[in-house]
């Protein structure tokens, strides 16, 4: 050993003379990756699952306002949401949550360009279009062109909602073209794509369906030339839309464990620790719409009678149905009603919102955009004359797809019922879409209600504090913007959710 020491000592001496500046260059944390080491491949799985989780579990407010869900008597009233008197604190997580995931998608896009990875570039454009669509549909004008540039724009200015929509359509066309140019996808990317496993044709169908979704959101204001242009781009792509059985769903490998269950199941059915949702329950309004001609929900446990069979798949039978001799398996409340925490208003007496057709298992896929919604949108676009095809056929396929997704029987019989038989109106298509998207895309019902007023007889909240307020047209910008980006949010004028509409809401 001793004989080694001298050479080592000499070596050390040499090292020391160079032990100067770079001795201090130790600012890369070995435990946290920085921008240099992160690749698109490690960003995509979370970008996909968080997007799907947000769509599936972050729009309770839309479900309450559109008559899908209500609050059980186990909980006291939530005055803000039930009086429609929303503040800058209400759902501020929509802003931070979407911008958080959009930040990652923006990084993914920049990295993909630098690394010449067109798949991730196209995926980033697609996911960014989804995120910004949800932001515009809730806030109208938001930072877009100056977003994600803290060096250049520490106070990001806002872009007009219609301009953002126009650019999203441009970005989606670019995404479609990038996907179309990809011939092979490597196994690592297939594993990272927890939605389509690298199937670029499915991605193109999703992109095309998203383009149709954007056009339909602005159906009341969009110029005909825009429709023609976008539809011709969709046609040029040639992959078509998400068809029956082709829902865009995400599954990174959900397991029964804390933070790792399917988000919908985890939130509305049961957590991994067995904690049940006691808050969200069926809304009497939609129960009435599912009820048959007699207007009354069947309480026969084995026979739904003339009810829409899907009622028993989107809602669960009450855990404690029998009260004072009367048995009611499917029971809800009126939104905004002050209820005592006693029978029959307790959570256990009422139908939860994670019925067996929606919460099939804690490890099921999480929908991001369903084939059901795709078919209803195609039907509406056909009825509007935007795209070719028979609206009646697509309408029937859409309803059938809804039954099929839920595992409910009797689609064919349902299609022959009065009121369900196609009457060639957009309102009917959108109303059936409303009945089909509960629990799958609650927010879309809120968009459709604002742009078309469907359902037409949606009741307002029963809360006494509602006064003359109606269902809000949008969210308030979050308080953080007023405090940290004051001049730019002030430039949007005074926001009154009762009167300040999204650009497409005319």
């Amino acid at each position, binding site marked *: 050993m001793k004989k080694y020491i001298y050479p080592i000592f000499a070596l050390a001496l040499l090292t020391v003379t160079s032990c100067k500046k770079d001795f*201090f260059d130790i600012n890369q*944390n070995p435990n946290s990756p920085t*921008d240099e080491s992160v690749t698109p491949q490690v960003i995509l799985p979370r970008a996909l699952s968080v997007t799907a989780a947000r769509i599936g579990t972050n729009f309770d407010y839309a479900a309450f306002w559109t008559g899908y869900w209500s609050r059980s008597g186990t909980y006291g009233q939530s005055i803000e949401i039930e009086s429609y008197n929303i503040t800058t604190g209400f759902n501020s997580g929509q802003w931070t949550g979407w911008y958080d995931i959009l930040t990652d998608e923006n990084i993914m896009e920049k990295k993909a360009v630098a690394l010449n990875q067109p798949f991730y570039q196209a995926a980033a454009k697609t996911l960014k279009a989804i995120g910004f669509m949800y932001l515009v549909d809730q806030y109208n004008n938001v930072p877009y062109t100056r977003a994600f540039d803290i060096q250049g724009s520490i106070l990001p200015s806002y872009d007009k909602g219609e301009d953002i929509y126009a650019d999203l359509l441009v970005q989606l066309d670019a995404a479609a073209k990038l996907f179309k140019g990809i011939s092979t996808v490597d196994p690592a990317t297939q*594993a*990272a794509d927890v939605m389509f496993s690298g199937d670029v044709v499915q991605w193109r169908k999703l992109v095309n369906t998203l383009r149709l979704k954007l056009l339909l959101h602005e159906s009341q204001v969009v110029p005909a030339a825009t429709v023609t242009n976008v539809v011709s781009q969709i046609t040029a792509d040639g992959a078509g839309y998400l068809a029956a059985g082709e829902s865009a769903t995400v599954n990174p490998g959900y397991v029964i464990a804390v933070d*790792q269950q399917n988000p919908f199941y985890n939130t509305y059915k049961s957590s991994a620790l067995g904690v049940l949702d006691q808050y969200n329950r069926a809304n009497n309004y939609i129960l009435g719409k599912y009820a048959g001609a007699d207007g009354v929900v069947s309480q026969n446990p084995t026979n739904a009678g003339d009810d829409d069979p899907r009622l028993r798949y989107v809602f669960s039978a009450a855990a404690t149905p029998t009260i004072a001799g009367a048995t009611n398996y499917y029971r809800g409340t009126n939104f905004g009603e002050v209820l005592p925490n006693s029978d029959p208003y307790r959570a256990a007496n009422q139908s939860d919102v994670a019925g067996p057709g929606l919460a099939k298992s804690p490890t099921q896929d999480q929908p991001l955009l369903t084939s059901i919604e795709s078919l209803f949108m195609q039907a509406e676009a056909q009825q509007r004359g935007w795209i070719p095809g028979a609206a009646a056929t697509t309408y029937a396929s859409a309803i059938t797809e809804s039954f099929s997704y839920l595992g409910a029987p009797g689609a064919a019989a349902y299609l022959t019922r009065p009121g369900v038989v196609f009457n060639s109106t957009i309102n009917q298509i959108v109303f059936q879409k409303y009945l089909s998207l509960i629990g799958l895309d609650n927010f879309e019902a809120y968009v459709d209600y604002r742009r078309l007023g469907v359902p037409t007889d949606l009741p307002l909240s029963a809360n006494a504090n509602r006064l003359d307020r109606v269902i809000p047209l949008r969210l308030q910008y979050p*308080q953080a*913007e007023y405090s940290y980006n004051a001049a730019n949010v002030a430039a949007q004028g005074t926001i009154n959710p009762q009167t300040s509409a999204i650009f497409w809401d005319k």
Partner: protein
Amino acid sequence: MKKLLLVSLCMLCLCVTQLYAQSKTVTGTVTAKDDGLPLPGVTVTVKGTTTGTQTDGNGKFSLNAPQNGRLVFSFIGYTSFETAVTSSGVVNVSLQASSTNLSEVVVTGALGQTRQKRDIGYAAQSLNNATVNAGNAVNIANGLQGKVSGLNVTTTNGGVFENVKINLRGIRSLTFYGNANFNYKNWANIEFAGRSEQTSNLDLSNYSYFYPSINASIVLSDALPFLKNSSALSYLKLRGGWNKTANADIAPYSLFPTFGQGVGFPYGSIPGYTANNTNYDRYLRPERITNTEVGFEAGFLRNRINLEATYFHSDNTDQIIPINVSSATGFTSSYLNAASFKNKGVEMDLGLTPLVDIGKVRINFRVNATYYESEVTQIYPGLEELSIGGYTYAGNFAIKGQPAFALKATDYVRDPNGRVVVSALSGAPTADPSTKVFGNTLPKWIIGLSPSVRWKGLSATALFEYKGGYYAYSDIGNAMAWTGVSELSGVNSRERFVFPNSSYLVNGQYVPNTSVTLNNPETFFTGVARSVASNYIINASAWRMRELNIGYDFPTGLLSKQKVIKAATIAFTARNLFLWVPKSNAYGDPDYTYSPAASNFGTGSTTGVTSGNQAGISDSSINPPTRTFGGTLTLTF
């Protein structure tokens, strides 16, 4: 592996010894002259350098010194001793107990060097153990409350162990002093210091900084012949100082934004990374502080009256602050050289010892007072203001041209006459999300009064403290409005009422509201009233009785009958006895701020002390202030 270890060991040794290429190791033992016992804790320094060490528990020391260097040994209560490095490298020293009065020795900020107070060109205050411990405070920082001018000690949380936040002269602690000294005839003194530091926390382009300082003092009462032996003006010293300091007191790895796995990830082998929400600046620069101060110290009537005053001015540039930003930037906070502040003020100390001396009764009185003001002089390019801490709807801002730590908060929607606009239908106001400035959260005045009285063996000392000229936000008001238990939410016995000083719109005109009552007070107090943070802003001024100490020394005659106990003292102590606040403060002690260590603005927390960038923000989770009572019995054998 073994070889590697050896190499790194060699490297370490070389890195150290390289610095002292011309030096040798000096060892020795320091003992006390009077009893010959070893002295632990003696400061041993190489004269003219900042190299130094302390003796260990056995009085032994070891340090590297130049062969021709001189060593200085100093220890409180002993006369400093200077000697040359011996050729043998062994230096044994015995120190003579000093007759110097302890109160004139100051331990300076750096290196633990002891200095004669008369030689120092900057404001320095000395407190003896007894003064700090008079109230049996749970930690030394609390023990300093109200006793040092220029020091603002804020308790961040109550409970048994009070966490505190310390602000010296407003914004920054003097994180630093190093010095070299020239003395003329023991009445003129000038010190220069220059120091270069490198930090591994910063990028290589910014990692090194130099800071110089100069300070000078002159004891006029010794220098001017006609003042010598004057009984009226027994001591007069003028002093002045200038220094530039720099620091980069940041956590390691604060230069690059990082990524982390999202919640739930990894799922099996599938990772899912997300950008973390704090942005970092790779080229972060060290903060720089330029301090200038002038002052005097005067003693009158054989030092019966002592007066000290200091004017100070500091420029704090490139302050490193985590600021809150719009999440549309991709981050929620950003760690930047965000702002520059100017800070100036006056510190005054008056000691009347004794104020009254009528034989057996002796009354002393000490006063210290600080006034200071600050101004934000520069802001990160492109910004007019920065959110530097607190709540989103009520927090601390740095606004160009305004005092540091401006408090901005949301308010009601008001008409041009300042009246609260209510709905003609519901009588209810609405919240205006745009925040407004409601004052600053650092006190402009801090005053400490300490009278003490002694009669025979009985003594009593009290400490009163005042802080004023500032505001605070009490989020507990928000929580109490929610639960309906505050004075605010109990207005008109919780029945409908006409909102005070309100108006509503009729045909485009605001008319005073005298009749439309608030339709639902519960909805209002659980809703809009909570969004309006200005409801919970208070004038934070307060007088308090901080400490009381009543003691009794048993007469020696009583003890003379036995030989075991030589002296006995019994004392009663109490802290935080009384608090006087303005009527507008319905929420309690404004001295309590809130700075959770886990938050992005409470960074830099160390044991028991939180030095965040947040001031005057409290919520309902902090413990109430503690009032402590205690007693001590001291027996000397």
